[in-house]
């Protein structure tokens, strides 16, 4: 955390560039062949400008941020609710952020955003 565990405290953010290598490695590990992640043409057929990353790559980045900041308590008893509000185009850099909104129980407003500040995931984490 960048401050004590109190309302308004910001968690230490984490950042990942979601390039083609990341998408390929994630898709391989998860056995996910969905072509919208690997083919611009397939993504364009659904109205995206080019291939989009798996949504849960950004979700994993949020979980990584929560583990980094909250430690064992998070992986043992965390609750995470994520809403995917915009696609992540392959090649984007995504930053996961969190702000404490309550402390008893702990509630963190989480957000994954691209470099231009566009939210791609919004949600809450609780302990």
């Amino acid at each position: 955390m960048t401050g004590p565990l109190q309302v308004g405290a910001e968690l230490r953010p984490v950042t990942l560039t979601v390039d083609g290598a990341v998408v390929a490695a994630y898709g391989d590990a998860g056995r996910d062949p969905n072509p919208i992640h690997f083919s611009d043409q397939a993504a364009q057929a659904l109205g995206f400008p080019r291939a989009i990353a798996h949504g849960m790559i950004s979700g994993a980045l949020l979980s990584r941020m929560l583990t980094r900041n909250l430690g064992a308590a998070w992986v043992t008893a965390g609750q995470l609710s994520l809403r995917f509000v915009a696609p992540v185009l392959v090649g984007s850099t995504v930053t996961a952020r969190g702000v404490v909104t309550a402390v008893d129980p702990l509630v963190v407003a989480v957000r994954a955003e691209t470099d231009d500040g566009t939210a791609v995931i919004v949600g809450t984490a609780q302990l």
Partner: protein
Amino acid sequence: MSSDTVLTWELLTVGERLGPYRYACTADVVARFRDAVDDHELEELDGVALAPPALLTFPFLQLVETWYAPRPGTVHARQDFTLLAPLRVGADLTVTGVLTSMHLRRGRRYYEVQASASDERGVEVARSTTLGIYPDVDVERQP
């Protein structure tokens, strides 16, 4: 249902039970996941090697995909996790679920699956609710 059956909207039935699906949380998969998303947080707890909780996305999505061949173009709309125990490297998970909802919103077709994963000791590791958007147009499958 078999995984040779491509998922179609018409095949989905609210109340249908999915699984049990077995998923081995092997050291190889964990290492590849950690490298893919550059997550090397909390690799061990009390001497036990751990997987990142977000790896649970894989068995929960594969639960659906063992019932139906993956539907090209399906995307995630919402994902909820409740973590109940650390995910151990080497855990053999059994995942079961149920299709809880199908609905239209703003012209899009959504389906929701609620699921649970337990390890080989019978310890419930996590619960999941996944909301997916079913594509309106056909997308060619990759070879």
